[in-house]
């Protein structure tokens, strides 16, 4: 699949933002006044900029409000509703903390649950796509939630929980990468079933429908950059998990070190999300003799 920058930014930034808002909803850290304002500003800023960047992927963003109508069947629509509900609940909660030094605990817990639900809905947009076997697996929501909670723990300064989460996230990401590499083959779809000619013999593409590219090949048969996948996986896991973990374990905790950990974690998350798209193989590739 084409790793569109708008969607990578959407999933990474909104995941981080909702992760941070979730921790703030639980009162971790228990701040108020201007400090709380800074925390909530970062949380809302990440979540909202992620949501806005998702609209850059649309062909007709001026009609984006229509996307709220089909929540009965569409995970994209559900994600829209949940993100708006989360922002409203957390907004009221934030106003209480920042301006009135009052923490509405129940509202905060509700907001934290909505944060998780929003990230889950985001992950289901991809998980539901049966045509991409690598995504169509329970590990996708698990990973999206792990990314969000780990990033949230990091940004909210909850080092005691961030440290084990870094190791868990790094390990889970590695395991699911290796696992995911076999999912397309296991799905049972191949050029034989795609053309229905598999019972006659071995099928290969003799001639494509046209000599150039088209929307389908650009959007869903993206193979550029896959050859560096292994190196990128290593870079990602180091930046995402191992280096931030080492910073908190071996160096004194301070704002400069924490900022470095956040930047490394962000780089790792972006690389990993790039791979999430670039390595996703769509069944339509079978009609083009590619994966």
């Amino acid at each position, binding site marked *: 699949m084409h790793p569109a920058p708008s969607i990578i930014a959407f999933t990474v930034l909104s995941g981080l933002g909702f992760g941070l808002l979730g921790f703030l909803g639980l009162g971790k850290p228990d701040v108020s006044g201007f400090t709380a304002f800074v925390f909530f500003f970062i949380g809302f800023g990440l979540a909202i900029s992620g949501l806005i960047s998702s609209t850059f992927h649309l*062909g007709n963003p001026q009609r984006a409000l229509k996307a709220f109508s089909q929540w009965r069947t569409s995970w994209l629509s559900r994600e829209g509703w949940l993100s708006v509900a989360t922002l409203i609940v957390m907004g009221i909660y934030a106003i209480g903390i920042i301006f009135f030094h009052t923490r509405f605990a129940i509202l905060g817990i509700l907001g934290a649950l909505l944060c998780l639900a929003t990230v889950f809905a985001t992950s289901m947009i991809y998980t539901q796509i049966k045509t991409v076997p690598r995504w169509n697996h329970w590990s996708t929501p698990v990973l999206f939630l792990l990314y969000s909670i780990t990033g949230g723990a990091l940004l909210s300064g909850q080092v005691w929980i961030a440290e084990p989460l870094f190791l868990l996230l790094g390990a889970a990401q590695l395991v699911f990468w290796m696992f995911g590499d076999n999912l397309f083959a296991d799905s049972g779809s191949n050029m034989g079933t795609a*053309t229905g000619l598999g019972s006659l013999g071995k099928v290969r593409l003799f001639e494509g429908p046209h000599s150039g590219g088209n929307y389908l090949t650009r959007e869903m048969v993206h193979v550029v950059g896959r050859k560096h996948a292994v190196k990128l996986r290593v870079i990602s896991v180091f930046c995402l998990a191992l280096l931030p973990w080492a910073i908190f374990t071996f160096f004194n905790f301070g704002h400069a070190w924490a900022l470095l950990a956040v930047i490394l974690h962000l780089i790792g998350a972006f690389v990993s999300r790039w791979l999430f798209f670039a390595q996703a193989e769509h069944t339509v590739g079978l009609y083009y003799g590619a994966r």
Partner: protein
Amino acid sequence: MTQLPTSTEKKLGLVIDLDTCVGCHACVVSCKGWNTENYGAPLSDQNAYGADPTGTFLNRVHSFEVQPERGAAQTIHFPKSCLHCEDAPCVTVCPTGASYKRVEDGIVLVNETDCIGCGLCAWACPYGAREMDQKEGVMKKCTLCVDRIYNENLPEEDRQPACVRTCPAGARHFGDLGDETSDVSKLVAERGGIDLMPEQGTKPVNKYLPPRPKDEAAIDVLAPFLEPVAEEATGFLGWLDRTLEKL
């Protein structure tokens, strides 16, 4: 509404005969011709006369080679367009309700004034039947020429999809696949019509007729008499052969 109907009154669709298709791409051209100036936004091209032309098509013809375990390989031309699936995954993922499956005839359509161009339906389709128009930013797909098949302004013989009407080989057939007595249903039963990627669970309405088995080369009764007579070269050629062998 993106909830799929539990059943449709008709299942209009295409039956494509892979035995007959000659790969001339006439259906591709007639499809583009009709649909660029009728239902919905035109099918735009980008850089049409440049070095890297690209454009929106609702129907494309791929060519495959099938190599059986023994015997010669076979070339099969393979037209592909929307299969108007009963369990259309493209419809349920649509966030705006722009994609829908019609209860009256089962045709899957896009209401372009509601489409935000998110592309999720194209991701959900296993077959690559939907293409985002790069100029309009809306999703385009085969309409089964819904503006031809019910169009009383057209002569009756033209009230079928443009691709079917134009096919010079008679490789494309249009009809109600929900009606067991229809010509297309009989054709599918007779020829063992197949679904593409049944493992995806989409229940496509369109069917493909597999190529008929090739004839085995007939045994020629005179063939034994045409065996080469002289196994060993004699005379000058024999001497040459032996001499060259020694070198």
